């Protein structure tokens, strides 16, 4: 039963990274789009994510609920020591969600749009940045529940190069996912080309940030290299991710778009797999070598059992409906732009 719960936890984190990530990425792309192309990008973006954006963000809530019901010690330790980045991330979530909705439902179109757009783009960047920082801090060994001073306990738990580079890496992954996703969402040839360029740009950014993560890890004595390459799962995953990347670029040059999305999704899945597999079941690594483990710090058996059933039954209801939603809005009529008033 415990493993069912852990699987769901991992899957919701992955899905949040993929779907929520593409969604964040759409805003990041906006941030990196020249003024003259912004309007059209926005249209594509809205018709692509409008109907499902609320569902995309549910994965985060599912992950949090699993964490606090099933693994309360992990949830409360992270809440205490990562209070500040969590708060910043929450502010990003508030700003982004409301700005996205306001700009499409504001009945009057005037200068306010400018404000919504700015807030949306900026928070699309900061939210995944801090998500990455939080994830990076969890495994960095910088969290110190025994810390004496304020800065040690609440600031240096997350403010260090490793976490920051993981944050930047997350941002570039989001931009990458979104560009790949949007390539298939537009019928206009030069738009498509623009998104392909964006995909390239974010791919390169991701590689650079990834390298920075390794460098930061090396300086801060985090055995990242060993986690990733020290076991066959990691090596296979990284190898296949790289191969699929090459394949993807070939397809992109040939102008074939049907396989791009699954390939991008596969790459991100492999990255998450390698980084979590080796130190599983320890998802929080504390200062001085202590850790919080999904198996040792799980709730009592009855709780886990009830949680597992709730998740299983829930997915029975959710998944078919979700697939139907995505399916229905995939085959949209040409030129359809969502509900614009």
């Amino acid at each position, binding site marked *: 039963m415990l493993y069912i719960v852990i699987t769901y936890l991992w899957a919701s984190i992955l899905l949040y990274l993929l779907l929520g990530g593409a969604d964040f990425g759409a805003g990041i792309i906006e941030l990196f789009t020249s003024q003259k192309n912004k309007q059209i990008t926005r249209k594509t973006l809205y018709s692509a994510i409008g*109907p499902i954006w609320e*569902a995309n963000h549910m994965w985060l809530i599912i992950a949090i609920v699993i964490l*606090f019901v099933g693994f309360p010690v992990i949830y409360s330790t992270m809440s*205490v020591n990562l209070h500040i980045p*969590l708060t910043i991330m929450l502010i990003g*979530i508030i700003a982004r969600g409301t700005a996205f909705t*306001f700009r499409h*439902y504001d009945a009057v179109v005037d200068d306010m749009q400018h404000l919504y757009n700015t807030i949306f783009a900026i928070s699309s960047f900061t939210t995944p940045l801090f998500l990455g920082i939080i994830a990076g801090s969890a495994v960095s060994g910088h969290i110190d529940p025994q810390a004496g001073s304020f800065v040690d306990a609440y600031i240096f738990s997350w403010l260090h190069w490793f976490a920051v580079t993981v944050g930047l890496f997350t941002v570039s992954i989001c931009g990458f996912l979104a560009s790949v996703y949007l390539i298939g969402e537009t019928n206009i040839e030069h738009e498509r080309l623009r998104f392909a360029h964006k995909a390239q740009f974010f791919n390169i950014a991701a590689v650079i940030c990834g390298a920075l993560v390794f460098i930061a890890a090396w300086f801060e004595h985090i055995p990242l290299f060993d986690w990733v390459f020290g076991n066959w799962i990691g090596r296979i995953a990284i190898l296949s991710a790289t191969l699929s990347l090459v394949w993807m670029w070939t397809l992109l040059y040939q102008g074939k778009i049907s396989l791009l999305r699954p390939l991008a999704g596969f790459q991100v899945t492999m990255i998450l797999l390698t980084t979590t597999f080796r130190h599983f079941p320890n998802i929080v690594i504390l200062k001085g070598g202590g850790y919080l483990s999904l198996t040792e710090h799980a709730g009592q058996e009855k709780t886990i059992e009830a949680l597992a059933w709730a998740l299983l039954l829930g997915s029975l209801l959710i998944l078919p*409906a979700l697939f139907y939603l995505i399916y229905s809005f995939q085959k949209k009529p040409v030129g359809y732009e969502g509900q614009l*008033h």
Partner: protein
Amino acid sequence: MNDFIAARSQMALSLGFHIIFSCIGMVMPFFMAVAHYYYLKTGQTVYKNVTKAWSKGVAIFFATGAVSGTVLSFELGLLWPEFMKHAGPIFGMPFSLEGTAFFIEAIALGFFLYGWDRFNPWFHWFTGVVVGVSGLASGILVVAANAWMNSPAGFEHINGQYLNIDPIAAMFNEAWFSQALHMTIAAFAATGFAVAGVHALMILRGSNVLFHTKSFTIAAVFGCAAALVQPLSGDISAKDVAIRQPAKLAAMEAHFHTEKSASLIVGGIPNEAEKKVDFAIKLPGFLSFLAHGDFKAEVTGLDRIPEENHPPVAVTHYAFQIMIGMGMAMMLVSVLYFAALWKKRKWLQEPWLLKLFALATPLGFIAVEAGWTVTEVGRQPWIIYGIMRTADAVTPMPGIAYSFYLFTAIYVSLAAFVVFMLYRQIRMVGKLYDL
């Protein structure tokens, strides 16, 4: 401001903010479903316009409700880590089911908002109903979690440890039913009155009268029906509280001394130093009746409860009075409205009735906030009644006051934005739906 007070204030602010959006998120889909139904049945465009105009307002409220809810699920840990460490596994069942309900709601909302002219009309209508049903389900589930804090169940508390956890028993705790019932009706009453009030105002101003009359009628019928039964459900809640949390009941009524044939107090200023209530109107025996269904029954006063376990009396008492006052006022308006519907159709044309509704716009939400203040402040000093003190649950992180100021600023500006947005929607009704 000390950290503990700051944490409590931040929690209260976030919940007080969220509850408005969640009430609307639970209830508006039903209003829309009715309007939508009339449109599909009669083909009158005005009903389609009402549905569409409402659905835009709802989209705004939904987004705000969803983000404020997401914030809450983190805040439970950010502010009360010690509480969540122990309570999470026990009262988590409703939250994990709620996840499903939210998810379905979000999916159905995608279908509903973006599905115009794309699906079979009745399938489209049905997705709107699903939004409402799953919204209601999530409301009921969270309230079950809150009820557990009032009436802990499903575990054994031995030497500070929480053993033999039974999440199902925790969910169906004793307070669950009365709170969920009362909350659900409150959501209908509050949203119904708020929506009816806004449309009544627009009718009085003479703009798009047909559109606003149809909207007004739907909202008013729901709101008034709920307001009529609300006091009955409140009575169930009060009887329940009397048994399960005598300290809360005593604080609600500023009932300092245990007595038989206790009198119900209306108004008044609790004087905690002298343990009496100044300037109050007393209805002898009615408190005994309210609490135990018998005019002679004994009602426990604060004197039977150790001083360190007293909730703040004044706040609880005033909040309770406000809730009852609003409830009575809304009930009165409802009686008049139903009288008008059944016997005095001509009243419906007269401005005084509409003015009354326009005045009553905020009453339901004031009552909701007051009612939650009763529930939450009346539970103090406990976060888990009788088990864990709120002061022991708070985060060790210093500087929460800044976090509170920050969130206050955010929520105030967000509220201003939502009002602004709504104002623009309403102003555009004439232009968008060329009536």
